């Protein structure tokens, strides 16, 4: 039984590998989706800046996304530290309290 399965297994794996290509062959090549932000209707200066960046320079847009995400993470971390300290827990000391 195991021997037979071992013989059929490569065939099944090969079929699975080929299946997606059969599906692609059924239709035409998929077009790339390009999205352009309509900066004509954006009045806010900051939003206009980011919309323009999205249209014209995707690399800088990605850098901004990383910087803002890191900044937001830092903000949440400091906020949580503040809340925890207000709860009376001092996490800056490493002394273990055991009873």
């Amino acid at each position, binding site marked *: 039984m195991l021997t037979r399965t071992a013989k059929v297994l490569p065939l099944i794996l090969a079929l699975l590998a080929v299946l997606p290509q059969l599906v692609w062959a059924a239709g035409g090549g998929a077009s790339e989706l390009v999205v352009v932000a309509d900066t004509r209707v954006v009045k806010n200066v900051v939003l206009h800046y980011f919309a*323009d960046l999205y249209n014209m320079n995707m690399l800088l847009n990605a850098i901004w996304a990383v910087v803002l995400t890191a900044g937001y993470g830092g903000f949440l971390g400091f906020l949580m530290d503040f809340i925890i300290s207000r709860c009376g827990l001092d996490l800056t000391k490493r002394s273990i309290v055991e009873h």
Partner: protein
Amino acid sequence: MKRLFVTSIAAFALTVLLCAAAWAGMVAQGKCIENDKAAKTIKIEEYDINFTPENKYGTPTGTVTVFDVSEAKIGIPPEPGDILRIAYTSDNDKYHAVKVMNVTKQDLSKKK
């Protein structure tokens, strides 16, 4: 050390802002009149931003503009009659498209 840190942050912010200013572009939307694949140009009749139920992509202005799309990123291939949204830069009265969105065939507002 603190001064170095602040200076680095300021330099980074200035660089980012200057880069963005250098890449500032414009956007035009309108009906595709011609898509010349040989000349790599797209001609559109521009629409304004007066959106109405009858003209949900804007009202036709009658202004016909030709965009050089030789270096543009083009989505679903445009055909005459399609509504296109083009991000572009201009120099010496020539318009260079950067991205071309086929609004008609990629209508994100259909779900509304």
